[in-house]
Every structure is written in structure tokens, then in C-alpha cells.
């Protein structure tokens, strides 16, 4: 009886099969994960148009840097998705 029970239990474990392979979620590059800094403000009481221009240019530059990050985030997502789908 004991042997029969053992044999049956051995036979019953036949359907449990798992695939021990897990694809790790890729880590995004550090430069993309840094938050965009706040825009710069104009300091001082007497402000010349040159200072105003400089600050505006600095802020535009900052915007474009941030736009690059967004563009590259999208690029990263498209590439990583394609790589992930190739695994299947």
C-alpha cells in the first residue's frame, strides 16, 4: 500500500514543469533618469538687456537639453522594446 502510494505520488508530479529563465528589465542610462533642472530666474535690481538675453538663452539651452532627454527616452523605449520582443 505504501509503495503504491509512493508510486502514485511520483507519477502525479509529472505535470509540473517551469522554465527557469527570466529576462531582466533593462536599466535606463543615468543621463536619462536625471530630472530636468528648474528654469533660471533673473537676479538683481538693475537688469540690462544683455543679462536678460543671457538668461533667456540659458533657459532655451536648458529646454533643449531636456528635449534631448525626452527624445532619447523614447528612443530607448523603442530600442529596448524591439530587443525584448526578439526574445520571444
Amino acid at each position, binding site marked *: 500500500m505504501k509503495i503504491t502510494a509512493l508510486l502514485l505520488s511520483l507519477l502525479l508530479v509529472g505535470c509540473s514543469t517551469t522554465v527557469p529563465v*527570466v529576462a531582466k528589465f533593462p536599466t535606463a542610462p543615468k543621463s536619462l533618469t536625471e530630472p530636468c533642472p528648474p528654469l533660471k530666474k533673473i537676479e538683481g535690481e538693475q537688469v540690462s538687456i544683455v543679462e536678460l538675453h543671457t538668461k533667456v538663452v540659458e533657459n532655451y539651452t536648458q529646454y533643449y537639453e531636456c528635449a534631448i532627454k525626452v527624445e532619447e527616452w523614447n528612443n530607448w523605449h523603442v530600442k529596448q522594446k524591439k530587443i525584448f520582443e526578439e526574445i520571444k
Partner: protein
Amino acid sequence: MWLLHLLPDSLILFITYAMLFLGIAGVIVGYILNKLTIQIVSFIVFVCGVYWYGGYSTEMQWRAKVAEMQEKVKLAEEKSKAANEEIEQQVIEKTKVVREKGRKQVEYITRMVEGKTVEIIKDMSEEEKQAFLTKQKELQDALKNCPVPRIIVEEHNKAADPK
């Protein structure tokens, strides 16, 4: 079949073949000796052997699939790393171009204000030079006579504030 993961391939195969062989041999011996018990036990062993052989084949197929998947995952991880490096490089290069453009624009105006325009006008035609000098004078006059109104600075700062 998870039990099979714990055993080496050769041992599984040995046990399987042994069970098949013993099963068949037992059935024959039982038939010759006319012992029904031996025949029944041997038949059960044979059936178990067949089951194990099927399990072994499935296990081998799964192991092959696992190996294939592991290879694919490894390749994907390498590709992913390369893509990350490429993107990181693109961010650095594009940022450098944008910063350089901004720096040049600020420098251009600073030179106009300070009068250090030799480099800027050296390749200009007479007409372009005159137009440039007019703009420079206009800028210098504005600097002397037109300070930026406080309200403009305040509104600029408000616009720069996300809240």
C-alpha cells in the same frame, strides 16, 4: 517532472532503460516460469519505464528550450547594454552641441557690448559690416538708455517658475 531537474541526464536515462529492460525481462521470465505476480510487477515496472522515458524526452526538450532561451536572454542583455551606451553617447553629443550654441550666442552679444568685434567682422563685406555696426550701436545705446523695466524681469521670473 521537477524531480528530474535534480538528477543528472545520464542517471535518468540509465534508470529509464533499466526499468524498460527489467520490465520486459520480468514479463518474459514470469511467462516462462508461469508466475502471474512477476508478470504483473514487471508490467508495472515496464509502464513506469515508458512513462519515465516520456518524461525524460520532455525534460530534454524543456532543457533545450531553456538553453535556447538563456542564450536569447544573454544576447538581448548584451544588445540592451550596447543600446544604452549608444543612447548615452547620443545624449552627451547632442547636449554638447546645444550648450555650445548657447555659449556662442551669449559670447556674440558680449563681444558686441565690449566692442571686441574684430573676429566677427573680419570676413564681412562693407555692406554687412555697416549693418553690423548699426546693430552694435543700437545695442550699446539701448544698454545705456534703456534699463529693463522691473515688470519684465518679474514676469520673466514668474514664467520660469513652474508653480
